């Protein structure tokens, strides 16, 4: 009884927040409703006994994807009002195409029937005995499908290499830390006795020397600052 009640509550909030994602005027609100939808979907997973998927949904989708969305929405200057401009004009044709697709789906579903041998052909049957679904999924991913799992990993690596190849540029004139030079440096470091309690005067902040000036280390006066170059 309680489970059924919880299901309807979560399902209602899920559908309602999904509608709000699409209709909210403020894109930030859309993303926040999306997060709410993820949470409710994960609650539904919990009710169905799939605790691993529930946790993954929260960790991956809420933790990473939704926050990324939020970043994108806030960083990019997208004029959502302009995006919605043609809505009235294109709504009828969209509705017609959607309706046709829906009818086709209905036709396919009406003709749906399992092959006689469907039960024997099942690739990943429910494991016998008391296996938690984390263990069952782990067994599938890392034992049965390890080949595809590793190949997918390679695809992600390729995507990373590709992104770097196509976008990374060596810029001239950037300053890099060269640790070996820093460590092997000697003779240019000077210890000076600074007047105690003199403080740091406003004009003693280090500034990069003017371009054509010699790069020699300069110590101003008795007010010296004790900074090392």
């Amino acid at each position, binding site marked *: 009884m309680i489970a059924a009640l919880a299901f309807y509550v979560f399902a209602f909030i899920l559908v309602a927040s999904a509608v709000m994602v699409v209709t909210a005027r403020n894109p930030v609100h859309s993303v926040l409703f999306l997060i709410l939808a993820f949470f409710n979907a994960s609650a539904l997973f919990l009710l169905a006994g799939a605790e691993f998927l529930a946790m993954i949904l929260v960790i991956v989708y809420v933790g990473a994807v939704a926050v990324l969305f939020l970043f994108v929405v806030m960083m990019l200057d997208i004029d959502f009002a302009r995006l919605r401009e043609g809505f009235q004009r294109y709504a009828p044709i969209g509705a017609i195409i959607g309706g046709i697709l829906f009818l086709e789906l209905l036709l396919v579903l009406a*003709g749906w029937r399992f092959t006689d041998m469907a039960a024997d*052909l099942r690739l990943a049957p429910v494991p016998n005995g008391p296996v938690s679904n984390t263990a069952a999924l782990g067994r599938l991913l890392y034992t049965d499908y390890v080949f595809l799992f590793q190949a997918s990993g390679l695809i992600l690596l390729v995507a990373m290499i590709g992104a770097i190849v196509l976008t990374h540029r060596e810029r001239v004139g950037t300053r890099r830390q060269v640790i070996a030079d820093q460590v092997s440096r000697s003779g240019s470091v000077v210890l000076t006795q600074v007047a105690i309690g003199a403080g740091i005067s406003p004009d003693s902040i280090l500034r990069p020397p003017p371009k054509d000036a010699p790069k020699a280390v300069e110590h101003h006066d008795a007010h010296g600052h004790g900074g090392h170059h």
Partner: protein
Amino acid sequence: MNWTLALPEILLAVSGLVILLSCVIPKQDTAYAGSMAVIGALLGAAVLVMMQDEGTAFSGQYIADPFGRFMKLLCLAGAAATLLLAIDFNEREKLARFEFPLLALFATTGMMVMISANDLMAVYIGLELLSLPLYVIAAFNRDNGRSAEAGLKYFVLGALASGLLLYGTSLVYGFAGSTNFDKLALAFAPGQPVSAGVVVGLVFVIAGLAFKASAVPFHMWTPDVYEGAPTPVTAFFAAAPKVAAIALIVRVLTGPFADLSDQWQQVLLLVSAASMLLGSFAAIGQRNIKRLMAYSSIGHVGYALMGLAVDTDVGVRGVLVYMAIYLIMNVGTFAVLVSMRRQGKAVELIDDLAGLGKTHPGTAMWMAIFMFSMAGVPPLAGFFGKLYVFLAAMQAGYLWLALIGVGTSVIGGYYYLRVIKVMYFDSTEEPLDAPTPGVGLVMAGSGLFNVLFILWPAPLIGAAQLAVAALVG
């Protein structure tokens, strides 16, 4: 679990990671060393492929058989040869970065996964592992607008094709209950009724795969991508991935869907005839030789698919022989195209070849051989490739298809011969630069194969026969 069966793939993947690390860390230029290491890894994988046992591994997702061996050796050889062509070109065009051979290596790994796929999921994963590096290397010359455009076009259309393939896969899975090829073959055994959902799914799968092989009507990306991408990348596209895509089509259609041949045969007949026609007619007006090669490759895919469309053992053997010969003559032709530069600057118009017969008689001779072979003039290898598929079509009673093939070969002969005419009978003031030794080696090897194939065709035919026996029997 018999994971040692997949040793060639594992070797390629692991050496890819090692090469990546050892090329990233040093501060100096590692492009040449990277290329050589990748070619070495490809040859090592080829040795492992030859020593590979037969059987299935990874709970039936991976299969090693003579068909896979034949196709994998072709892909590895094609990839290694095109990388060899790329070294010098990239150096001169200031594209020499180690990521190029590395991405080609991962693409080749994807091809091997595809060829060995025994599961629709493995098909998809292999296809993506192949496609993703290809999108990147198409845009490798990123400061060139055409190259970037090629990469973007290929990416958008490729993503669409992947979507079609996945949709088809999901339909097949939904209606048949499995993605494993062996189990699918059971589900579609002759006694079983075929639901419309499976047929729709099958058509979508064929569409997704035909895109990768650039068969009509999924060819639209080919000319633009071939023209825009750097020439060695075009060479790579036209060689190994095409062989892998054809191999995958053959494996999927003669494996799990063998008993649905009534359903897919008509699709393939149409695709084959349309590819041959478009490949020959659209190429006539081309002035850019890379675009010409794009249409030529569309036509060649049509000829190769003819063997599969007639659905006989002889036909499938014809496909394998055709792809082997196509690969070798294509690599040779692109060796000539890669070496086309005038005063250090790459050129790619057919008219730029003018006078080649006088200035570089050796290169011109090989190019003439490749063009005659592509046109299917006896006694060169290209003639035999066509002969086997045409004979298979006639034996299976598809005389009209063979006649279209012969007709389009004649039309194709026009533009291949035009290249030869430009080389020998047109004159020029500015001769092209001489090709480098590495490129000359690839030209000579491929040219000799084309000339000498008639003397000793048995090894290739025999290997193809063995591969087909494993696939069909």
